[in-house]
């Protein structure tokens, strides 16, 4: 399973979104790595890519709002990391369409997404939770 309890931040609203995000990415990886032919996988791949484009933006926005609410000092830097990932997802999506659904491109995307997501939640987002706990504002979810 992709989600592990150690990734929990202790902020219920963000934890719920992270679990949803991990669940969708896990479903995406299972399809990506399944033994089916690429043509059979494509509808699910495209569906997940569309979801990612929307949900990642929505989740990042909500997380940024939470950071503003608790006056997180690294808000700007964290926002830039989010912007970088959104740009990457959009660029890959564009390249995927232009390449007529190239499988190698999507396998490369899947690998990077896996490491990026785990690091972002386990390391970078954890800093938000640590700050919130230190400041006594960890219950200030939306």
């Amino acid at each position, binding site marked *: *399973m*992709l989600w*592990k309890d*150690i990734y929990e931040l202790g902020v219920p609203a963000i934890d719920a979104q992270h679990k949803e995000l991990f669940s969708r990415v*896990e479903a995406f*990886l*299972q399809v*990506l*790595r399944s033994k089916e032919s690429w043509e059979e996988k494509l509808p699910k791949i495209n569906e997940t890519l569309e979801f990612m484009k929307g949900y990642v933006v929505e989740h990042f926005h909500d997380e940024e709002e939470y950071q503003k609410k608790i006056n997180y000092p690294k808000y700007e830097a964290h926002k830039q990391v989010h912007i970088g990932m959104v740009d990457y997802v959009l660029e890959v999506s564009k390249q995927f369409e232009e390449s007529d659904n190239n499988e*190698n491109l999507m*396998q*490369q*995307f*899947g*690998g*990077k997404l*896996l*490491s*990026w997501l*785990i*690091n972002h939640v*386990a*390391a970078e987002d*954890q800093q938000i939770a640590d700050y919130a706990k230190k400041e006594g504002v960890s219950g200030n979810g939306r």
Partner: protein
Amino acid sequence: MVDKLYKAFVDATYNVFNLMFNISDISDHPIDEFACDNELDISVGIVGELQGEVIYRFPVVTSLNMVNIMSGMEFEDVDIFVTSAISEIANIISGNVITALSDNVFRYDILPPVLGKPSDAKEYEIEENCCICTSLGEICLDVRLNRA
């Protein structure tokens, strides 16, 4: 400063394994004791007032263990997916070093990770290396830098 930079790469590797894989039992030893002929070499270029590269040498066994733990799936071969996941980890470690040392006198940045070991022909003023041992396997770091 150079010692500090090398130590920062070792520390960042420790931290990434600790946070991403929940592994705290990590140690390092000299690279001479590293024996591996089947590995994934990822090179991350450094540009700016320091120039060179950091080569991350991930044995295939270590690479597969890492991706298996992260994904909860069973990967048996190093393919494009595994290479991309491991390259991103090299990128994360290098990025963390840049962030940790952002207040230093030297200004430098990192380039996207590239698969393959660079040539040994070029000489570097600074060459440091070590092997980091974890329960997922070993990883070797090879830091090669010149002052610009």
